């Protein structure tokens, strides 16, 4: 279904593999960096959106209390607030949706470049861009990293390969925690409960999926989360002194 993305990505992995000393882990890492650069405007917008939501949380809470019995009015007032503040309510989930095809493409690309079944390899043999320098004879790529097979899901035979899905869990949890708008005031509110739930559910889901797929995919998830975390701190440091932090502000008002 996502082969239209998987084939170009698999060929990009081949090119990077050839350029980076025939190292699969280096190729996947470089591809992760490239993808994150490509979607940087989206992730920045997601982070900005989260930050603004954080800053306007007290106002939102006030509206929720004020219009507790009038949902329609509450929605109108919230939309008005979003509009005035320049917040896109879709800003948080849009990057996530846009990244989905990339994940599916990457799942396919790893499956083709380091195939675990012969049918996948045979299929890919007809989609290698022969005009790319040095790609003839590269497939299947060297698949071993720290004794793990990057083209296979974690397995008891390589028990240490389970550490990668665990790392996926930890880094994506940290990322979620940092990037999800903090809720204040009524900590029992539906929104707060949802956010807390999501901070646990999303990382668990990512871990679940990386348990099912090739270990190479875990590398992408871990590195992507680390990049977002670094990005977050860089933005935070960049704006420290410019504005009052949303959390501090809301605490001050509480």
């Amino acid at each position: 279904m996502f082969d239209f993305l998987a084939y170009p990505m698999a060929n990009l992995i081949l090119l990077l593999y050839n350029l980076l000393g025939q190292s699969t882990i280096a190729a996947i890492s470089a591809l992760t960096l490239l993808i994150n650069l490509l979607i940087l405007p989206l992730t920045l917008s997601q982070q900005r959106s989260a930050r603004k939501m954080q800053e306007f949380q007290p106002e939102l809470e006030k509206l929720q209390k004020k219009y507790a019995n009038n949902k329609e009015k509450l929605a109108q007032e919230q939309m008005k607030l979003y509009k005035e503040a320049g917040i896109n309510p879709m800003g948080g989930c849009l990057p996530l949706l846009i990244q989905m095809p990339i994940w599916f493409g990457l799942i396919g690309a790893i499956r083709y470049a380091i195939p675990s079944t012969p049918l996948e390899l045979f299929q890919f043999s007809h989609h290698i861009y022969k005009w790319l320098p040095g790609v003839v004879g590269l497939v299947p790529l060297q698949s071993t990293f720290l004794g793990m097979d990057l083209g296979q899901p974690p397995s008891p035979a390589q028990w240490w390969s389970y550490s990668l899905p665990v790392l996926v869990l930890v880094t994506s949890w940290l990322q979620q925690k940092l990037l999800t708008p903090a809720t204040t005031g009524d900590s029992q509110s539906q929104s707060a409960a949802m956010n807390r739930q999501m901070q646990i559910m999303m990382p668990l889901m990512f871990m679940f999926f990386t348990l099912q797929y090739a270990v190479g995919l875990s590398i992408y998830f871990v590195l992507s989360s680390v990049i977002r975390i670094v990005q977050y701190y860089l933005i935070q440091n960049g704006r420290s002194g410019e504005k009052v932090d949303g959390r501090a502000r809301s605490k001050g008002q509480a």
Partner: protein
Amino acid sequence: MNRFWTWRWPIALAVLAALLLGASGCASGPVRATSWTGLTVVGDVLYAADLTQIQALNAADADSLWAFPEDPEEDGRGTFYVTPAVDEDHVIAASQMPPAGFLGQPRNVVWALDRDTGSLLWHFDDAASQYVEGGAIGGGVFVIGNSDGNVYALDVESGDLKWTFETGHRVWATPLIVSDTVYVGSMDRHLYALDLADGRVRWDFPTQGAFAGTPALRNGMLYVGAFDNRLYAIDAETGTEVWRFESGNWFWGGPAVYDDIVYAADVEGNVYALDADTGEEIWHRGLDTPVRAGLTLSEDGSRLFVSGQGGALYALETARRGADSWRPVESEGQALSTPAVNESIVYEALIYGQHRILALYVENGGEVWAYPNVVEE
């Protein structure tokens, strides 16, 4: 909009979960084959990996002689793909059994069966990954490569592990045993000559591409293709290159040799006839289909059988520069494994089709039988 805002994450999560489940195959219907099934014909019997069973069929009419397991519903032994290896007393094949539980792993098992009855003699399940192609029997030893990168040598009578040889990548090629030497290619881009007795390396031949096909032997010379688009002629004794022939794409299936001519096909469907001594091209013919399978010659060497991915079986006249001996026989499904042939019948294995085996007359391509015999209502 407020409701959407509140529920944005659960909605995103649900969409993500649905899409990931779809992509992972959890939400799909019947399991699709991930490899191709192989055939071996010995005398009057055709031994076939038939997905859930190993079948011994009467080669003339497809009557079932035995099947292992007899009832795969009750006594499932996993999925059988690899070409069965057959000697006087044994039929040896391998399957992958599904994982037990969420975190369970598939079991990869070699099964040795009594050639006459199909009863189980022994099994071996130490390999960590999938068997893709079959093994070879020689000198009382069964040798098979595995996706875990190892070559396993088992005592053919007891199933005891005699030795393993670790390569640097998956081993998807069926080994060739000649006298006391095992020749086997690996995805690590090496062709190895191993001592049959202990697995010691006699020589290894490095190239720029993976090996996935079985070498062919003639007059002390090995012929084998690789994923670097080259077909190599290698001295079987020393492992030195004698000549190489370059094509436009990978060589996957093993070549065939008859008299002084080597026949090979690349995955784009170009079939080559080369001088076995010099590697010079005698003729080549492009088929309109990708070719994964190895080539098979009729017993008298007059016809070359090629299975195309699209399901067609070609019979090329070797004396007429690969002209069709008879019109290619089109079938539903994909034909990715090497055809098997006896004196008068050629057999083609299919996946994803109505029939899984097709038997055709060597002389004219007429259908002898199709298995399973599906009756139209």
